[in-house]
Every structure is written in structure tokens, then in C-alpha cells.
């Protein structure tokens, strides 16, 4: 009798557990949340672009958004350790870049809707072949009152960037046949850049922050080593002289970064008052997502980006709370499966990849069969709670270079089987897959352990492939070990990874797509590898990337980049899975919010204000 009681109790508890999980898998809830969020998008007003105006001899940029109230603070957060430096030329990680870019504007910016270059510190610009003429705003000042002139620009470009101070990645990306562009001061408010050849991506480089010469020059004179520690997180905040909307007020390690308004910012509102409206911008440094969510719910944060199950939960809460959930469209992140096409030998004469597997991976039919076996919709539905878009292209879905002719398709097991058959693969009675030489198809699938999203994708991909009769050993391993395999030892079969790209400049992808790239992971060559063993389509890709960088007008470039996406779509070195949607929640008290896919939620931070309570 007693035993029966226990059994009933256990069943009861199990039933409760199941009930708890049912909610997550319930399509209705997810779908309605998804739909509601999608509707939001149409509610965004159109962003009124800023225009140049000249008042009392000063060339301001004027906000066309409604006039707001001054004062208040917006509290954001950043996950992780916080910034490692406030020097925009030293930052190597995302958080540090965000934290320093708030304080320093570049000559040009990016239009939040169209993605075209727009003037920031520059009043206007003209491109004449290889020459880029930049006219600066007259009369605008650094936060300490000194004027911003051509000297600052030339100093920044010549003495910091071209001379290789700090993180040299910006400079390294600008080498064309071993030559760098040049910069020349024409007069106090005019600068001319000249590239050795027409080089389209250069215009985006003009978004690089400009440094105040009178502050940075002493540091540059002390040499590179000194510069590496210059404007680190230990620098007293009052030393920062900035051109951006804000300047540093306080940095408390592992807690927060506080910015205050730059009184000399060059953007004004329609009443000619200097922006930003907000007195303070605060970034709380939080350790993980859970803490971030708790802080938002506890009212300590004003803005949060949401993922997975939290989206539907926040959507529920939205009705009786003081925030709105925004859907900003697919992110620039891409999630993909890739196979190791490496057919080289290591120093000891052993193949990096087992030759049997090499034969499969090199076979386009095999790659396409895998592509057709993966059920993207199911993955998006189950892993991203429906909040993602299946992905088939190398450019992310919000890229202005996206090739829209490449159509998505559903999982097609029959087609996959047919492709495998064409290449001589066959199934035995038990449904196991063998290649034409009778080798069972079995390989390892890696991803980085700890990334729950990728681990979940791995399980589903494994399931999909095992339906095809392949044996997949799914092994989540430590991130560093995985990177080591990808870039150094090349001993892997298949991997699930993600990369982020730029939605406005595809040339950043050359590290991945050009055959000598440092992240050409599907066929990684060691640095300094000279033998030409490229596949035909890799050669084609190299040509397209070179041509794309050299062409200057958008239409011509688009053709090259369309073609490269087409090759990637056809050859499947990367089998793209999906892009997650960016979902953010922001408190309703903030006005002048014009979210865009390219700019994000608060791209116009200087125009955002807090509605006064009536």
C-alpha cells in the first residue's frame, strides 16, 4: 500500500514537471508573442535625419526630431567584465569599443535607415576617384573648449593610425598592395585623403574616431608601449577630452560606467539648444544575462536586450508594465555548420583530415545533402522560440548587400537522399549510410561547450543527420580548445559556429572568404602558405573580393557581392542555419526613440529625452 503511495507521488511530481515544460513548447504562446512583436515594427515612426545648419559662424548638425526636455539619465548595461580601455585606438573587444566610441565621433557616420555614409564631425565630403575631400565643421569644439580642426584629423590618421599605434587592425585592413592611403591638410577645415587605388571600403574607415591632438600628442611622443596603457580604465575621468555626445564622469570597476553630457556637442535641436537632452548615460556592468534580467525587472535598468524564453515572458509583462518590447529584426550574427575541406598534410606528413572523410566533405553533393537534411524552421522554432529567421546567405539578413535572389527552401529529405545516391552513397538494411567504397559515414561534430544555443542546435543537427543514416558524434568542447582546432591544428570534421558581420560593409568578410584569410576556417591555410591549391570557386571568391573592394559605386559592388553570395549558396562551405532576432525592451518614459534595423534601438542617443510627468 505504502509503495503505491510513493508511485502516485512520483507520478504526480513528474506530471507537474512536464506541465512546467509544456509552456515552453506551446506554439500558441510563442507564436502570438512573435506576431505581436512583429506588429510593433510598423509602429516605428520614420527617423527624421539631421541636417547641417550654420549659426553665428558655427556649423552645427541640427536634430529634426521633436523638441524634448533636458535632464535625466538612461541606464543601460553591459555583460561581462566591463571596458578594458577607454582609448578608442586600443580597444580590441566589443565592450571597450562601445565605451570609447560614445565619447569620440568620427568624421562620418552611418545613416541608421539606409546605411549610407553621413557627415558627423565632417560637414560634408566628396569623392573624386581616389581622393576623398573632407570639409570640417567650423567653430565646433572639444569638450574642453578647444576647436576641432584639420590638425586633429591629420594627427589622428597620420600619427596614430598609419604609424601603427594601439590596435593596428584598422590600418592593416587598409593596405592595398602594401601601400597605405595618405592624408593631407589643405587648410584648417579641409583634409584630403588619397587611396593608392580606388578602394571602396575606405569610406567606412572614415567613421574611425578622431582624437584631440593636444591630449593625445604627448602620449604618442612617449612611444607605442606607453600608448598601450594610455587612457586606460585607471585614468581619472576629468582627463578625457571628447567630441561625442558624452564624456566620462565615473568608472567604478565591476559596477558601472557613468557618462555626463558633453556641453560642447555639435548637435543642436530645433530651438538651437545644444544636445544631448540626457544629463547622464550609465552603463551597469553585470556578470550574466540572468542578473541583467533581474536588474531590469527590479527597475535598475532602462534598456535590455532579450533572448529566448524571456521574450514571451516580457511580452506578457509589457501589458501592465512601463516598457515596450521592440523587434529590431535579424541580427548581424550568423549561425552555421561547416565542414573541414582541408586536404593538406601537417609537418609529419599526416593528413589533417582523414582522407576518407576528405572525400565526403569535398563532394558538393554531400554538402548539399547535409544542407537539405537540416530542418531550419524546426531549429528556429525550438531553440530561438520562433524568434529567428532561417538563413541561407553569407551576408546577414539586414545587410544592404544581401542578395535577395537566393531563395530559402525547406528541409527536403528526398532531395538529400537523391544527392547522396548520385555520389554513390548507399544505405544498408538497418538504414546506415555508407560511401561508395563501403566506409560507414561517421564524423565528429564540435561546438563550444557552455553556449546553450549552439549546444541545442548541435543536438538537433545530429538528429537531422542521423535520420539520413549518418553517425554523428556530437562533442561540445571548451571554447579555447575549439578555436585552437579551427585556427591551429585543423583536426576537426564538422563544427557549429557563429560569426558576426557588418551589415554595411561586406569587405570585412574577407578574413573569412578569401583563401588566405585568418578565419577561412573551412579550408584554413597556415600563415605564409604559398602553394596555390585553391578550389575553382575559392579562386573565383578571391577575385570577387578583390574586385568588390576596388570598385567604388554601390551598384557595381553589389554585383560582385551578389555573385559571392551566390557561390557560397551553391558550394555550401558554410551551411547557414539562422539569424536570431534582436529584441529589446525600453522604458516608455523615453521619447524620440526611432529603432532601425541597422542602427538599433538608441542610435540617436543625443535626441532621446525623458518625458516630464504631468
Amino acid at each position, binding site marked *: 500500500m505504502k509503495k503505491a503511495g510513493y508511485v502516485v507521488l512520483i507520478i504526480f511530481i513528474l506530471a507537474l514537471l512536464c506541465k512546467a515544460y509544456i509552456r515552453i513548447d506551446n506554439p500558441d504562446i510563442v507564436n502570438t508573442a512573435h506576431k505581436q512583436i512583429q506588429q510593433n515594427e510598423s509602429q516605428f515612426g520614420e527617423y527624421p535625419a539631421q541636417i547641417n545648419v550654420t549659426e553665428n559662424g558655427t556649423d552645427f548638425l541640427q536634430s529634426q526630431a521633436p523638441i524634448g526636455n533636458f535632464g535625466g539619465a538612461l541606464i543601460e548595461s553591459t555583460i561581462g567584465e566591463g571596458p578594458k580601455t577607454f582609448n578608442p585606438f586600443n580597444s580590441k573587444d566589443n565592450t571597450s569599443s562601445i565605451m570609447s566610441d560614445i565619447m569620440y565621433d568620427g568624421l562620418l557616420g552611418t545613416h541608421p535607415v539606409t546605411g549610407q555614409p553621413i557627415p558627423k564631425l565632417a560637414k560634408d565630403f566628396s569623392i573624386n576617384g581616389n581622393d576623398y575631400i573632407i570639409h570640417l565643421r567650423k567653430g565646433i569644439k572639444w569638450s574642453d573648449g578647444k576647436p576641432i580642426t584639420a590638425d586633429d584629423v591629420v594627427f589622428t590618421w597620420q600619427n596614430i593610425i598609419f604609424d601603427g599605434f594601439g590596435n593596428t*587592425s584598422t590600418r592593416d585592413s587598409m593596405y592595398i598592395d602594401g601601400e597605405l592611403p595618405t592624408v593631407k591638410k589643405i587648410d584648417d577645415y579641409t583634409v584630403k585623403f588619397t587611396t593608392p587605388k580606388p578602394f571602396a571600403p575606405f569610406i567606412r574607415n572614415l567613421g574611425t574616431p578622431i582624437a584631440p591632438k593636444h591630449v593625445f600628442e604627448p602620449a604618442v611622443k612617449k612611444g607605442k608601449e606607453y600608448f598601450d596603457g594610455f587612457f586606460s580604465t*585607471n585614468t581619472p575621468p576629468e582627463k578625457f577630452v571628447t567630441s561625442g555626445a558624452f564624456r566620462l564622469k565615473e568608472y*567604478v570597476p565591476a559596477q558601472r560606467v557613468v557618462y555626463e553630457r558633453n556641453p560642447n556637442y555639435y548637435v543642436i535641436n530645433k530651438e538651437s539648444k545644444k544636445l544631448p537632452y540626457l544629463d547622464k548615460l550609465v552603463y551597469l556592468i553585470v556578470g550574466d544575462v540572468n542578473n541583467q534580467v*533581474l536588474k531590469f525587472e527590479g527597475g535598475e535598468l532602462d534598456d535590455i536586450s532579450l533572448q529566448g524564453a524571456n521574450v514571451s515572458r516580457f511580452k506578457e509583462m509589457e501589458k501592465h508594465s512601463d516598457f515596450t518590447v521592440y523587434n529590431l529584426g535579424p541580427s548581424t550574427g550568423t549561425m552555421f555548420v561547416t565542414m573541414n575541406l582541408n586536404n593538406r598534410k601537417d609537418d609529419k606528413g599526416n593528413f589533417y583530415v582523414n582522407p576518407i572523410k576528405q572525400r565526403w566533405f569535398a563532394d558538393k553533393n554531400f554538402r548539399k545533402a547535409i544542407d537539405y537534411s537540416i530542418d531550419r524552421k524546426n531549429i528556429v522554432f525550438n531553440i530561438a522560440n520562433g524568434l529567428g529567421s532561417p538563413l541561407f546567405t553569407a551576408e546577414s539578413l539586414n545587410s544592404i548587400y544581401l542578395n535577395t535572389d537566393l531563395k530559402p527552401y525547406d528541409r527536403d529529405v528526398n532531395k538529400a537522399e537523391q544527392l547522396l545516391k548520385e555520389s554513390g552513397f548507399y544505405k544498408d538494411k538497418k538504414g546506415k549510410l555508407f560511401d561508395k567504397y563501403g566506409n560507414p559515414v561517421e564524423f565528429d561534430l564540435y561546438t563550444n561547450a557552455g553556449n546553450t544555443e549552439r549546444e541545442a542546435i548541435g543536438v538537433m543537427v545530429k538528429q537531422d543527420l542521423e535520420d539520413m543514416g549518418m553517425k554523428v558524434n556530437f562533442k561540445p568542447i571548451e571554447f579555447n580548445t575549439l*578555436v585552437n582546432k*579551427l585556427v591551429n591544428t585543423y583536426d576537426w570534421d564538422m563544427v557549429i559556429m557563429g*560569426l558576426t558581420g557588418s551589415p554595411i560593409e561586406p569587405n*570585412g568578410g574577407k*578574413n573569412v572568404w578569401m583563401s588566405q584569410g585568418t578565419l577561412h576556417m573551412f579550408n584554413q591555410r597556415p*600563415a605564409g602558405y604559398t602553394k596555390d591549391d585553391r578550389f575553382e570557386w575559392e579562386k573565383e571568391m578571391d577575385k570577387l573580393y578583390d574586385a568588390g573592394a576596388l570598385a567604388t559605386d554601390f551598384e557595381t559592388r553589389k554585383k560582385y557581392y551578389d555573385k559571392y553570395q551566390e557561390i557560397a549558396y551553391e558550394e555550401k562551405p558554410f551551411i547557414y542555419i539562422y539569424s536570431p532576432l534582436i529584441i529589446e525592451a525600453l522604458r516608455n518614459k523615453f521619447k524620440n526613440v526611432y529603432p532601425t534595423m541597422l542602427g538599433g534601438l538608441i542610435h540617436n542617443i543625443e535626441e532621446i529625452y525623458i518625458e516630464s510627468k504631468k
Partner: protein
Amino acid sequence: MQILKYILKRILQAIPLLIIVSMISFFIIRLSPVDPLAELRLNPSVSQETLAKETQRLGLDKPIIVQYAKWAKSFIKGDLGVTSNGEQVSTKLKERIPNTLLLTIIVIFLTWIVGIPLGIVAALHWKSPLDRFMTVLTSIGMAIPSFFFAVLLLIFAVKTGWFPVGGLTSSDFLEKSLGGQILDITHHLILPVTVLFTLSLAGLQRQMRANLLDVLDSDYIKFARAKGLSEFDVIYKHALRNAINPMITLLGFEFAGLLSGAALTEYVFQYPGLGRLILEAVMRSDINLVMASLMMGAIMLILGNLIADILLIITDPRIRRGNV
């Protein structure tokens, strides 16, 4: 004089110990597959030249032995080196040590001031309802995992809105008056202190109770009672003095835990202490920072034990006569 000699001897003994500890830690960290540059390698916008420069700057291009020798040399000179971000390790530690000390000292102070009397009370009223009640309470305290308790309290803070969700200061801390600042810090400290206090209180109370019960059961207490001494004298002059010895050893360990004991709680509460710093350092194999913290931990442990032993010599005449 003798005691000075003893201290000197102990310090000399500690040196080979520290060398071994440092070597083992250094090699284990470097043998782990963590690549400090992994994040950079996977960032498409970071160039090959930058990577090479970083490798050189961090000394990763040299053999482990050379790396260790370089570290040891500067450590002996008192230079802790720079972190992988190029900041001074000592500055980094200095930022965090006061925060952690603030938390742990409050907790240790509270637990000892509450735990010892409670232990005595429980032992004196052995098997009474009061003792049983406290046993239940302390068992609960010992059984709850600290991170779980911390998470529960965080959720409590969110739901009620009575307490801030983690951290040490509010974002408008600078604008507050001195009194307001103290209040703000206190407000933030309540929850983490509650967690750590509950957990260590339970252990301490049990320990004190057991020690005192042990002593109360011994022959000399029976003798003292038989001699007709007052109960007060028996307990506070004879029993307690003997029961306190193991507690002093415990105090030595508490000293060692001053800087490292609260890592888990710190992490959950996003408390800007050493624990979080070091955890993050381990994750990206920031060798100088990790080594500094490990060495600090080892030195604190050795020091704690030394202090406990000296205290024992002072409180216990038997040790004074015998071993030194």
C-alpha cells in the same frame, strides 16, 4: 625572544612551500587549454599583425619555463606584473580588496559575536527545547548551498523592491551626501551579508557547542564541580578556556578566507570583489592576475595559521611550555 625565533622559523619554512605552490599553479594554468587570445582569433576585424603583437606582449611565444622564471623574478622584486589588458595587477587588486574585506570582515565579526554565545547557550542547555530548536535552524543553514540561497534572496529583492539587485553602490552614488552614501552601501550589503552570515553562523555555532560539550564531559570539570566551585567559575574559568582552543585554529582559517571566502556569493550578487575579478581572470587565463591572487591566498593561509598558533601559545600554557 623564543616566540620571535618561532615566528622566524615558521616564515623560513613557508618559503619553499610558496615556491612549490607557485610552480604548480603556474604550470597547471599554462597547461590548461585556455588560450588568452581565443576571442581575438575569432574576431574577423582583428588582423594577423595585431595577433602576433599580442602574443609577443603576453610572452606566449616563449617556453613555459622562461615565462615562469620571468614571472618569479619580478614577483620577488615585488612587481606583480600587468594583466592581459596591460593594467597593473597591483592596481587591479587594490580596487577590489577593500570591497571584499568590507564584506568578509562584517560577516566574520557578526558570526563570531553571535555564533559563540549561541554555541555556549546551546551546550549549557543540552537537549533542551532551545538547543533542539537551534539545531534545526543551524542544520538548515548548513544545508542550503550558498549560491542557491543567494539567488532566492535576489528574487526576493526583485519581487518586493525592498533591496537593490546586487552591486555595492547605486548609480547616483556620487551625488549623495556622506550619510546617504553610507546608507546606500549598507542597503546593498544587507543581502550578501545575510547569505554569508547564515551559512558560517551555523558551522561556528555547531563547533562551539560540540567543543564545550566535550569539555564539560571531561574529568577535570567533574573534579571542579566536585570540589564545590560555583557553576559560573566551572564554566567560564575552566570549561570555556579549554573549549576555545579549537576555535582559535578556526579563526586562523577565517583569516585565510578573508580575501577568497566569498567568491560564489560575490558572483551571484555581482559584488565588485576579488572573487569575481579572479574568476574572470581564470576564464581568460590572465596569468599574472591569477598567480597574484593564488599567491595571496597561499600567503594569507600561512599567515592565518601562524597567527592562530601564536594566539594558541598565548592562551594555552601547555603549548607554551611544551612545543616551542
